[in-house]
């Protein structure tokens, strides 16, 4: 059976892509962010996931506003990145696991999450930057991208995204093949790019979210989307991807690592690793 080994969540600011290309890892501006990945690299080297399920938001590469799904699941053999228009280097393609993708899609729809199914899907920086941060230079894991609309309101609620994650977690664990699966949530934390409130950051709310997401994610569902915009900034709603990631961790969850740094570009940057002790493993012990 497939097993969920844990989750990683990280900021996906486009300028990180440029900083990687320019090898700025030790530059004083970037070091506090990049050094937060040393632990992630050790964890991945030890845990060796076969597949990474990504919860992320597309920023106008694969989807346009003419047809915008709330939840969309990739089922492609390969996911390409392309020119996004803001001058970051085009990343290498990521490999998919089609059989696993279709299993997730079938299970999600049976579980009343009526997702959009994508046999072709471009992945933008919200997937490629976390991949490159986690596995610099070589991406050994296959991926399943799950896109959540965080762009055009109405957005799905915090509670809905947590439930989506839980449904994905159940779907992963019902896969008969022995796969080691990790889940990834990308984006955030607090930031706002638009309006006269551009540059808004809320350290206090970010810290609360980082604390609560580990073992009390349900308490965060009290915040409406309007609340999250007010407290985390217009683009801070990317935290929905983190909620879905957390929902997919079905076992005993503990924080293995946390890094928080202000600012990267306009954003409060954060990276966490959550370990998931699966139910079956607990029974065996």
């Amino acid at each position: 059976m497939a097993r969920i080994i844990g989750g990683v969540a990280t900021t996906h600011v486009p300028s990180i892509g440029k900083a990687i290309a320019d090898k700025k890892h030790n530059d004083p501006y970037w070091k506090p962010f990049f050094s937060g990945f040393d632990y992630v690299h050790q964890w991945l080297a030890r845990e060796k996931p076969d597949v990474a399920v990504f919860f992320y938001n597309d920023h106008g590469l694969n989807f346009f506003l003419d047809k915008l799904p709330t939840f969309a699941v990739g089922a492609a053999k390969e996911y390409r990145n392309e020119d996004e228009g803001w001058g970051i280097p085009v990343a290498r393609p990521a490999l998919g696991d089609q059989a696993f993708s279709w299993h997730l899609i079938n299970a999600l729809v049976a579980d009343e999450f009526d997702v959009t199914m994508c046999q072709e899907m471009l992945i933008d920086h919200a997937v490629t930057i976390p991949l490159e941060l986690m596995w610099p230079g070589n991406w050994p894991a296959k991926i399943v991208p799950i896109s959540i609309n965080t762009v055009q309101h109405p957005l799905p609620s915090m509670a809905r995204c947590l439930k989506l994650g839980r449904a994905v977690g159940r779907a992963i664990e019902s896969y008969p093949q022995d796969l080691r699966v990790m889940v990834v949530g990308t984006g955030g934390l607090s930031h706002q790019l638009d309006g006269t409130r551009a540059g808004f950051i809320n350290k206090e709310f970010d810290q609360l979210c980082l604390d609560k997401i580990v073992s009390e994610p349900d308490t965060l569902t009290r915040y409406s989307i309007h609340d999250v915009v007010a407290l985390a900034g217009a683009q801070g709603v990317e935290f929905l991807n983190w909620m879905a990631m957390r929902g997919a961790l079905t076992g005993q969850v503990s924080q293995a690592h946390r890094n928080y740094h202000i600012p990267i570009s306009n954003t409060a940057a954060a990276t966490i690793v959550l370990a998931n002790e699966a139910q079956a493993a607990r029974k065996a012990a």
Partner: protein
Amino acid sequence: MTQDIAGTTMFDGDQAQKGLALNRMCFSFNSAENRAAFVKDEEAYCQKYGLDEEQRAAIKARNVLQLIEAGGNVYYLAKFAGIFGLNVQDIGAQQTGMSVEDFKAKLVAAGR
């Protein structure tokens, strides 16, 4: 346009409807060829995408707040800004009426 969170425009159905043509044009800037075509003949390019007068004036003025008012979504507007080599800190400074240096300093201060 409602702004019940000060300085923030919710990109909702009304804004999405208003900004469809503008955002579609900006979506086209994912392609280098289209960015070059815009630079070559801006007026013709805006016309091809059916921008209204308000949107054309905002594009001409390179004014992000006006572009938002005209229905622009910031992720798409960032692709427009990319044509001029401007990043989100440059457009943040423009929208808040600060110098880019002061805007960056404000972000650093938020971490203290």
